[in-house]
């Protein structure tokens, strides 16, 4: 197990270097200067421009710039935001918890719904129920999440006024009691969580169905049936355990998609999370912030992959032993 983790860590260091290189090149090789609009702003004097160029080290050779930048980002120092002069990492740090919170909750709900849907689909493959689930999956796949958000806002929030339109808390939030605060938060988060769950649910339940079907048609299940094990045991002990392995992986791999989705629903619902921060950065052309978020987003993705791998290795003895033998 230790060897397996060490090997993975080597790979991760390599990927981190690659991520930093690509992020750096994306910003520096594109037309236009990393200083953004400042270069073309006639109100900014030449001296200030020269000074800014020097501060950001833009007069040095590209390799030198990259190494300097790398030296800073390993300490998570992404510089300061062009918008308000605050440190980029501070801005990101205060926005991460909300995004993680929403995504973890929706992952949990996805898992809770996708598992039974997939199992039913696999067990009754070809039945009316399976077809209905398949139709639901295709509709879910094709439903643009921002349209869903818009429709829900229009009906539930504007027309019937059951839930608030947007934002994280109400104006008079500080005056609520403890329970009132929780209730207020929940009311604000219901739509965002629903939207972010809906988008990924279809794909994952389809995936569970395929994996469950493969597991159910393998030889050890036929053996289990032949020796007369009860259906419940076959399902839970033998089929599900095998089908779950790839599902663990897919949950880890869904991190980049969820982060991308966060940009959309956090922007629509005006939630102060990482996705909305990214949107604000893009609108303001705040390059240090964009670069910081790009790197953090990639690191989170990598972390998701790593967790998936470790989870897989813990759950599947074959991989563990194979790694130990090498």
């Amino acid at each position, binding site marked *: 197990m230790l060897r397996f983790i060490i090997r993975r860590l080597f790979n991760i260091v*390599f*990927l981190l270097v*690659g*991520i930093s*290189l*690509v992020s750096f090149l*994306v*910003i520096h090789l*594109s*037309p*236009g200067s990393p200083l953004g609009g400042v270069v073309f702003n006639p109100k900014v004097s030449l001296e200030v421009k020269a000074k800014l160029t020097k501060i950001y080290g833009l007069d040095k050779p590209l390799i030198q710039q990259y190494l300097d930048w790398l030296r800073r980002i390993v300490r998570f120092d992404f510089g300061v935001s062009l918008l308000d002069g605050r440190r980029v990492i501070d801005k990101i740090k205060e926005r991460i918890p909300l995004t993680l919170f929403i995504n973890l909750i929706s992952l949990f709900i996805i898992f809770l719904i996708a598992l039974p849907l997939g199992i039913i689909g696999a067990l009754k493959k070809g039945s009316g129920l399976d077809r209905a689930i398949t139709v639901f999956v*295709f*509709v879910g*796949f*094709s*439903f*643009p999440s*921002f*349209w869903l958000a*818009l*429709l829900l*806002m*229009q009906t539930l929030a*504007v*027309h019937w006024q059951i839930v608030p*339109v947007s934002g994280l808390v109400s104006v008079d939030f500080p005056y609520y009691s403890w329970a009132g605060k929780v209730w207020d938060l929940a009311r604000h988060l219901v739509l965002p969580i629903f939207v972010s769950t809906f988008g990924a649910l279809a794909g994952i339940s389809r995936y569970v169905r395929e994996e469950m079907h493969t597991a159910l048609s393998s030889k050890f299940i036929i053996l289990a049936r032949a020796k007369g094990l009860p259906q419940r045991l076959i399902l839970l002990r033998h089929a599900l355990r095998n089908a779950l392995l790839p599902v663990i992986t897919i949950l880890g791999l869904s*991190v*980049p*998609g969820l*982060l*991308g*989705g966060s*940009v*959309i629903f956090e*922007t*629509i619902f005006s939630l102060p999370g990482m996705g909305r921060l*990214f*949107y604000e*950065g*893009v*609108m303001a*052309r705040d*390059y240090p912030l*964009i*670069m910081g*978020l*790009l790197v953090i*987003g*990639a690191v989170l*993705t*990598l972390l998701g*992959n790593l967790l998936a791998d470790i989870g897989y290795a813990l759950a599947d003895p074959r991989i563990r032993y194979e790694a130990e033998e090498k």
Partner: protein
Amino acid sequence: MKHLFRNPIFLSGFFIIFFIAFVCVFAPFITSYNPNAINLKEALLSPSSRHLLGTDTLGRDLLARLLYGGRVSLAVGFVAVGISVLIGVALGSIAGFYGGVIDEIISRFIDIMLCFPSFFLILSLVALARHPSLYIIMAIIGFTSWMSPARLIRAEILSLRQRNFVIAALSCGLSQRRVIMRHIIPNAWGPVMVNATLSMAVAVLIESSLSFLGLGVQPPQASWGNILLEAKECLGVGWWMSVFPGLAIFFTVLGLNLIGEGIRESLHK
């Protein structure tokens, strides 16, 4: 091919996409309204026989905007996927066929690119492009989505090159380039087509999301995404503005997904 046109999933998707593409291409014959003609006297009219799908806040005919906007969405999806498949097939087949160091470099590069949440990467590039034109958006989506076709074709080629007909072709003295182009790629084409239609669905979604965030197709040029953005800005009035463009996106994406699934099914037969 015979299988394909007997597959109900493929056929339903095909007819949906054919219908949408047809009405968008022949838009001038279907509606006489100019999609950008502002008529404030007729702002926010609900659907009627005069304006079949109603009008928007500036009195522009919604049906006309949908049809002309559909041209944009379909074109972006098509070109973006063309770019990504071209890059993906080129890099993937080089990696798969030559193996060794070249494969290692390309595969590691794919690994690195896949670490970025693709929507983050796309938004960063949009921010850098300053004033994203239609072509730049096509290029950005294409250049950030070639990784999965590349991986796919690499895997296909790795399995194909062990097959007897490829070994035979090579031992006949055919050049490697010819073997790749004439024998390997045509055989790997099916899975790539499945991937391409599914990624075109994703590309249409990405374009409309970008336009909905105000970062894609810029008004007055219509796109399904930016009509929805206008609908969001006058939330609560004019339900037709938020329903019809969304339906258009939904059916386009659904049609493409059905086509992809249909091809996949008929490949396994």
